[in-house]
């Protein structure tokens, strides 16, 4: 096929008007021909900036060259040296800020479509039953990993490859963490992609025990004591949803994005025959501008609602991946930007009837470097909605820190860990959202990877 060197090979997607009514994956992805064509655009830089942009340092030119040659299995083995979840990352990483953001091609034209190529390679490997390489020697030591989200899975996978006996403890009834409860099917298919990547990690010898809440069912001291683990990695994720503290937030019809998405994704409430209910809304306001807000908005849209994103800053400040914002707009989500809720209105029975907002304008930059939104006096207005979904981030869950003596937390109650994940407790490492607060899948994976290396070094002494 012909390739314009300045442009990405276009990726096939479901048409917006079709996908707005189903939960099938939005992006169809590259086929082999398209992926190989895109690979020809790689300049194979001597000093590849893309690798520096990757939190898990995948040898990107390495796998792209294999792909270019048509050696897909070889490409997969290159990726799996660095990433345990390539089919996930190819779908959910904010590539425009990482690998693709650094791609030299991007200076004059469009960056290489690294995410889509990664996705193709991982999907091909899964469909052709290619597995990551197993550990050659056993270390005879045990590591417990808390949480089976991206951070825990990555850490567990790397440790298993290094020869450790790894057990993951998961609080929910299903493994995957945010990959199963948070990110919707239309962005990350569960059975086809997530479960298969988890199977691969189990295939490395990792044991996953669901229904175990560390801090409640068992403590870290017990894991390191009578359970005989030599080290523990805490990848327990973000935690408690934030609300705004405005009037009306406990009205019937106000949900955290975590609740709404957990009902839909983990409990499959989007399917008609699900045992777990979800509110059938007519008009929904989703408050927030991150990936979680986009996921909640696009879920509500697919469940039949008219949906507004209410975000207090402007378009360029939206923290969500560019692709998600683009897809949301295509599907008909309305963006009420520079708008901040001040009250949730209730009818006489206590159900949501509207959301009162105020217009904002951007003032001086704040501590985050982004221009701080300030209220425009007298600009209050109301959007009539029957549902409000709060997607404002989370604060750390105290279940582990409050039951583990000597485990330091910071002012925000995040677990304190150094750059390799070492905490204030001997033999205890941590990473991902439990340490950083809510961030991305790939940063959590990066932390899991770094910690796995540090745990290996610690246990090899």
């Amino acid at each position, binding site marked *: 096929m012909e390739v314009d060197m300045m442009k990405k090979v276009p990726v096939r997607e479901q048409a917006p008007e079709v996908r707005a009514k189903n939960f099938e994956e939005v992006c169809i992805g590259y086929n082999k021909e398209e992926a190989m064509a895109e690979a020809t655009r790689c300049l194979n830089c001597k000093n590849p900036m893309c690798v520096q942009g990757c939190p898990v340092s995948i040898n990107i030119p390495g796998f792209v060259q294999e792909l270019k040659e048509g050696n897909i299995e070889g490409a997969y083995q290159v990726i799996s040296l660095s990433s345990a979840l390539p089919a996930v990352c190819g779908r959910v990483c904010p590539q425009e800020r990482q690998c693709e953001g650094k791609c030299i091609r991007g200076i004059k034209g469009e960056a290489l479509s690294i995410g889509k190529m990664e996705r193709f390679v991982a999907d091909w490997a899964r469909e052709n039953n290619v597995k990551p390489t197993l550990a050659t020697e056993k270390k005879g030591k045990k590591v417990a990993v808390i949480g089976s989200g991206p951070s825990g899975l990555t850490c567990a996978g790397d440790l298993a490859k290094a020869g450790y006996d790894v057990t993951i403890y998961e609080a929910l009834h299903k493994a995957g963490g945010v990959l199963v409860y948070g990110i919707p099917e239309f962005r990350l298919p569960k059975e086809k992609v997530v479960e298969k990547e988890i199977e691969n990690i189990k295939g490395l010898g990792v044991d996953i025990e669901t229904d175990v809440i560390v801090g409640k069912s*068992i403590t870290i001291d017990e894991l390191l004591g009578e359970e005989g683990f030599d080290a523990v990695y805490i990848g327990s994720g973000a935690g408690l*949803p934030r609300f705004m503290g405005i009037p009306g937030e406990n009205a019937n019809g106000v949900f955290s994005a975590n609740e709404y998405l957990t009902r839909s994704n983990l409990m499959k409430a989007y399917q008609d025959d699900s*045992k777990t209910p979800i509110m059938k809304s007519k008009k929904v306001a989703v408050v927030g501008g991150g990936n979680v807000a986009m996921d909640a908005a696009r879920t509500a849209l697919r469940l039949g609602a008219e949906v507004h994103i209410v975000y207090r800053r402007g378009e360029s400040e939206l923290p969500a991946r560019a692709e998600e914002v683009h897809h949301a707009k295509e599907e008909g989500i309305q963006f009420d930007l520079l708008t901040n809720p001040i009250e949730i209105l209730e009818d006489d029975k206590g159900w949501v009837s509207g959301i009162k907002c105020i217009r904002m304008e951007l003032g001086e930059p704040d501590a985050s470097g982004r221009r701080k939104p300030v209220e425009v006096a007298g600009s209050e207005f109301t959007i009539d909605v029957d549902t409000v979904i709060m997607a404002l981030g989370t604060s750390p869950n105290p*279940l582990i820190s409050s039951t583990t003596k000597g485990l330091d937390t910071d002012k925000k109650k995040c677990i304190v860990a150094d750059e390799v994940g070492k905490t204030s407790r001997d033999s205890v490492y941590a990473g991902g959202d439990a340490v950083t607060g809510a961030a991305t899948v790939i940063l959590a994976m990066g932390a899991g990877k770094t910690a796995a290396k540090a745990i290996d070094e610690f246990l090899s002494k």
Partner: protein
Amino acid sequence: MFKILEKEWLNVNTFKMVLDAPMISRSCLPGQFVIVRTDEEGERIPLTICDYDREKKTVTIVVQTIGGSTVEMSKKEKGEFLADVVGPLGRPTDLCTDDIEEVKKKKIVFVAGGLGTAPVYCQVKWLHEHGVTADVIVGAKTKDIVILEEEMKAVGNLYITTDDGSYGRTGMVTTCLEDLVKKEGKEYDHCVCIGPMIMMKFLSKLSAELGIHTIVSMNPIMVDGTGMCGACRISVGGETKFACVDGPEFDAELVDWDEAMRRLGLYKPAEAAALEAAKK
């Protein structure tokens, strides 16, 4: 998978299950709850622990068939398995974590309504094992739905009252408590009340008038039970609390009852449909 070691119907719509749950039985305390899923498609159902045995590694739950998911669970028999039992969740009751010598000084009354008898039993039994025998008021609509009578008698001073007077005293739990205090010279300074929300609301109104500090165990809608979803939020003293991690027990006087009851009705139509489907 969690094995059902025993199953027994306690009345026409309430059953007891003894579950093989080694990890939970090792660490749980009265006041805490578990979340149960009957099968792979099941809803997550929060249930307050009714009893546990650390040696036999079991946890006992008592369930009322009030909705589709509990009807589905009731179809499981001894020897079969429940897909998931996770816990212990929430905080134990203060009575089991406070200094026991201080607890012994308290004049405690428990008030249980219907299914609430089960979690109350767990607390009364624990206190009895620690040298405290408390008064217990158990309320039921009629004689045939009183549960755990013999078990409760063995560990507490039991007062049964039925709405229709078919057994024990006549009237609701509020009447019983009022009579005990005003007519029968009983003195209490601590009350734990567990039952339907409407009953807890009115009982705690009375107990406040009687000057009895009252704790209630809230049973709001929940999903994960670990603090992640916030479905279970309750206004307590003007602050939003998550029943799953901050509770489930709260100071009754501070609870916004009307809001809590309203929030229980969030999925009523879906719940009614699910119940019909499960009964078929």
